[in-house]
């Protein structure tokens, strides 16, 4: 798996969610609601013999809106839903990819991030991605 291609593919697929701006790397400036695909927590080589399979844990952060807004609560809930047109899990896992074989949205953690002095609710998606070790 090529890391850049994987990050591009995940971002492109998430970008099909209406109204969600997606970035394939940690950009300097974002305008919520946005999903930022970040660098992997880890890449594990040689999951099988002969470079058959590698695996990575890739984070993607959804920065949604002011933490104190009810509309932001409703929006982050839609992104974090297990199903639905705005569900990051459903959209990413239903995609077809050439950069890797399979993605599973394994978990979500929540946080409040400060951007330009404003506190935004953020959802950190943890993606479990597997693919060939030779492509």
């Amino acid at each position: 798996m090529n890391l850049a291609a994987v990050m591009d593919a995940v971002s492109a697929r998430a970008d099909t969610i209406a109204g969600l701006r997606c970035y394939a790397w940690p950009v300097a400036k974002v305008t919520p609601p946005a999903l930022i695909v970040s660098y992997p927590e880890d890449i594990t080589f040689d999951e099988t013999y002969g470079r058959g399979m590698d695996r990575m844990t890739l984070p993607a952060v959804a920065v949604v809106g002011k933490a104190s807004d009810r509309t932001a609560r409703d929006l982050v809930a839609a992104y974090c839903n297990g199903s639905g047109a705005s569900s990051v899990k459903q959209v990413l896992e239903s995609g077809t990819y050439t950069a890797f074989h399979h993605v599973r949205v394994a978990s979500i953690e929540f946080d409040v991030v400060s951007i330009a002095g404003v506190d935004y609710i953020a959802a950190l998606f943890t993606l479990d991605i597997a693919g060939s070790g030779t492509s």
Partner: protein
Amino acid sequence: MTLVHSKSTVITVGGADLSAFTNESSFGRKADKHDVTTYGKNDHVYAPGLGDGDFSMGGVYDNSVTGPRDVLEPLVGTMVTVIRKPEGTGSGLPQDSFSSLLEEYVETSPVTDYVKWTAKFQPSDAVTSTNQV
């Protein structure tokens, strides 16, 4: 002495290379023993018997036609030729080749992980251990 990593291991079953779907394998060789202790001895005396062995492998399921399901499932209960190259492919590297009964093929599906598979073989007759040319 040089350490050898397992990641280069190559295993073919019936001519099909399953290495890219495999992440564990075990090949054991053993022999029967016969107790030939007689009167007057203070310790057991043994004589060697017939050789025997066991072989198993497993890994990550793949749904391609060259994957473990399509290759191994039809071979359960049949004799197949297994070739094992513990240090990978290369001139002078060791290789074991043996005829074997494929006794079982098992798929397991843990909910939070990929589908896994294992296969158990019973080697039959002599094992040919050579260095690759």
